[in-house]
């Protein structure tokens, strides 16, 4: 059965990147129109200026503040691609922040080792989740729920309930420094993204992950070690959350175990879904998740610019979530198609 290639516009509409990019473009357009002072031909939203050799502006703020969300979304993408979900990322952020802060302030361990230890801890946390899902066979929501509940408790245990503040230079730099004119967080995100992209697209891991999420049984029959693949993606998610936790802690120059990463797991899942990866697993797009995370951050920033308190930003987020789910739902599309057919006859 050979079919004529779909017309260009159909292919465009069905490509996974289309909707998130369009959404983001529309949002930016709105910002452009709303914040442009037409007489002076400048837009406060898009204004960039250089101070002390660093680039500043709303766009930069979005990238900076959104860096944690992007990192979480990157790790979450791979987990969702295998048909799972990781609810523990917020709690894991707390763990890495606490470990880094404690080690930095109370020991003389060299900074790179501090970072390494914090990330190893979060890797272990991720592998714990992965083991529960892949080897014990617990449902992902349930398995990661455990760490989500207990993880924060563990972090609080380490700090004895205190918020640990620090002025440790390198640790402060992580979330607040600049590199090549851009915030350092942008560099971190770029590095992590590149690492994951190389790992998934330059080795066969990406295809293996997609295959596992798309049809786990068939993949097993092809000789894939489905369990190991699942274990791995949760490990990645843990490490990404660990890095995000370091940034979050650095941002406020304190390790606040009870608040850091609060509700960020849900934002991460949203970003992934909005970005075009399906919740049921299979094909994934890291770039899409980045766009999704940026979109969500832009939404928040836009609302703030409109004078809407960020606490209310969840409302449009809710509409976006539901809209995306509807669009991804086969049942919805079928019903809409039927509706159009009826009205045209």
């Amino acid at each position, binding site marked *: 059965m050979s079919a004529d290639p779909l017309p260009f516009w159909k292919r465009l509409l069905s490509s996974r990147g289309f909707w998130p990019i369009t959404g983001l473009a529309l949002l930016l357009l709105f910002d452009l129109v709303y914040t442009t002072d037409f007489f002076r031909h400048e837009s406060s939203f898009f204004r960039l200026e250089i101070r002390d050799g660093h680039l500043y502006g709303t766009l930069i703020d979005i990238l900076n503040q959104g860096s944690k969300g992007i990192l979480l979304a990157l790790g979450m993408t791979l987990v969702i691609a295998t048909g799972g*979900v990781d609810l523990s990322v917020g709690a894991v952020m707390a763990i890495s922040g606490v470990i880094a802060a404690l080690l930095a302030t109370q020991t003389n361990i060299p900074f790179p080792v501090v970072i390494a230890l914090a990330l190893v801890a979060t890797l272990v946390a991720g592998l714990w989740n992965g083991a529960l899902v892949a080897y*014990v*066979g*617990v*449902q992902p*929501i*349930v*398995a990661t*729920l*455990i*760490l*989500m*509940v*207990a*993880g*924060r*408790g*563990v*972090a*609080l*245990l380490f700090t*004895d*309930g205190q918020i640990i503040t620090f002025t440790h230079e390198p640790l402060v730099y992580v979330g607040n420094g600049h590199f090549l004119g851009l915030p350092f967080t942008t560099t971190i995100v770029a590095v992590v993204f590149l690492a994951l992209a190389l790992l998934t697209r330059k080795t066969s891991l990406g295809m293996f992950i997609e295959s596992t999420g798309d049809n786990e049984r068939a993949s097993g029959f092809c000789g894939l070690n489905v369990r190991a693949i699942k274990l791995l993606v949760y490990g990645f998610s843990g490490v990404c959350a660990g890095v995000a936790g370091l940034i979050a802690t650095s941002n406020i120059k304190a390790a606040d*175990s*009870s608040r850091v990463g*609060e*509700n960020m797991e*849900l934002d991460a*899942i*949203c970003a992934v*879904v909005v970005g075009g990866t399906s*919740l049921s697993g299979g094909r994934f797009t890291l770039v899409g998740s980045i766009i999704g995370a940026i979109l969500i951050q832009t939404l928040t920033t836009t609302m703030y610019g409109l004078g809407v*308190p960020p*606490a*209310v*930003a*969840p*409302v*449009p*987020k*809710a*509409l976006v*979530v*539901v809209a995306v*789910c*509807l669009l991804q*739902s*086969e*049942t*919805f599309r079928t*019903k809409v198609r039927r509706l159009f057919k009826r009205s045209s006859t």
Partner: protein
Amino acid sequence: MRLPLHRQQIPLAATAIVLLILFGTAALLYKGFFSIKVVLNLFSDNAFLGITALGMTFVILSGGIDLSIGAVIGFTTIFVASMISQHAMHPILAWALALLLGTGLGAAMGLLIHLFKLPPFMVTLGGMFFARGMAFVVSMLSVGINHPFYERVLALGIPVTERAVIPASAMIFLALFVVALYLAHYTRFGRNVYALGGNEQSAILMGLPVGYTQVMVYTFNGFCSALAGIVLTFYTGSGNPIHGIGMELDAIACVVIGGTLLTGGIGYVAGTLLGVLIFGTIQSILLFDGRLNSWWLRIVIGLLLFLFIVLQKLLSSASASSRTEKVTP
């Protein structure tokens, strides 16, 4: 190999044992723990958690999940407080409106989930965002409640001893518990919820009203969350849009520790009550013991969750191996 009678009740029995052990140990360790007052506080301090956990039980039994409850609770508290204190509305009217709104949101989510087969996780996530945001739209800051009717309600109580009283919050909790028991075990609706969670395909083939059941569990849960919010205003005397953050987790934990399977179809409403009591007992222990810090609550709950999940897994794989192998031609 036939498994012991009523295998499903094993987790429930385990929960009861855990509760007894916890309470018993605490009673031995702390003077004054074993008293009517402490027991009554278990019910009244955690009434709002218990009310919403009861609603959540039905959702989880049906095979779904509802992440919006914490946000609905927060919204309800600030809505009620704002209506009473800033718009001079009578509490009963404010309550009625709040219940209507919570129930309405639940119904809307249920409809989306059923009509378009959307994943409950995502839809209720959207509901959570929506309710939380709307809470801040009502008011950015907390609002106190000062109304004679409230004072009357707070003064209500069934005296048990000269010093201990069952307050309104506990009464509502217990009343809802009785209603939940009735629904779950003595109505067709309740049995349909179990059927839906047990095997959706079969339930459809058996001709059960699956759509109606699915929408109603979310509607009922919306009602319960709003009711929990109202009860919370009794406890705090105010409304605050940040109330309830993270409470969905606590509710889910209570339900799971109570023996209900997160995949649905198995569990008991009574188990949820026990789960809430365990939650409350741990909190009370933390209060009594000055040395233990509050985060131990999270760790212990996490540990209990883990143990119960593993227990559930073991029980389900034991039953799977005892069943005859199905062979496909």
